[in-house]
């Protein structure tokens, strides 16, 4: 797998999109793998007590899922040199059912001198942005 050539990349270009379905089981699995056992991610009663609508997804789960669009485009996870997000809205995860999160990556900037591009991620739930300033810098050198 070779990385895309920086000369072929233009600002505004879409690098891919995907739909992520999030169920309670996905949060349990993420809690185990990440060791983030905060009760608001698995206990409705506690989540409501602290003013949430119910169990919400770990922000880091959503971020981790969103970045996959970039990894799969660039072809090497080692090419990702920087990624940052703001968590602007929670993603409530129903039981039963799933929350549906939409992810799209668009080239936000190209730096030929550094050999890097910035991918801006649009991550939405029910039409509203859940990650703000979600930016991933990728080395194409």
């Amino acid at each position, binding site marked *: 797998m070779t990385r895309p050539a920086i000369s072929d990349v233009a600002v505004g270009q879409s690098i891919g999109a995907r739909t992520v379905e999030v169920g309670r089981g996905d949060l349990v699995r993420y809690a*185990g793998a990440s060791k983030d056992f905060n009760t608001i991610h698995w206990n409705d009663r506690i989540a409501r007590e602290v003013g949430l609508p119910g169990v919400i997804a770990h922000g880091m789960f959503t971020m981790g899922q969103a970045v996959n669009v970039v990894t799969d485009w660039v072809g090497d996870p080692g090419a990702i040199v920087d990624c940052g997000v703001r968590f602007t809205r929670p993603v409530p995860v129903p039981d039963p059912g799933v929350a549906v999160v939409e992810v799209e990556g668009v080239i936000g900037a190209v730096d030929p001198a550094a050999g890097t591009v910035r991918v801006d991620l649009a991550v939405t739930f029910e039409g509203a942005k859940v990650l703000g300033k979600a930016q991933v810098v990728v080395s194409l050198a």
Partner: protein
Amino acid sequence: MGVNTAYAGREYPATAPYAVGREHLRDFASAVGATHPAHHDVAAARALGHPDVVAAPTFAVVIAQKAEAQLIEDPEAGIDFSRVVHAEERFTHHRPIHAGDELVTVLHVDAITERAGLAMVTTRCEIADSDGAPVATVTSTLAVRGADA
């Protein structure tokens, strides 16, 4: 009790080494839906020039949160974890994390600001390998709501 703003500027001693395991990297990648072969298959990772399977780009949060517990779980810091919401997270990778790495972390409390019943706590984890070479910088901001907010 509110968040103790006197903790701003604090730097903690380096953590004990964190051993990055191959199965853990696979489990974490699966948990975030990261299906790229370099996270799972040693041969695929080596074909890209990596010594072993590569961590997903957000895996460093596991190491960072373990280090951040030094602050979060300190009763004197006054952070009620049930009132914490994650506000921001950023990873700067100086090199990819691989299975077999032994990583040490120095936790810095970069800022604690309070306004309108909300405390914003920004930490920075400087993660380095066993030779002291920088591996990742993880910056995290937590919003802690006051008891009456």
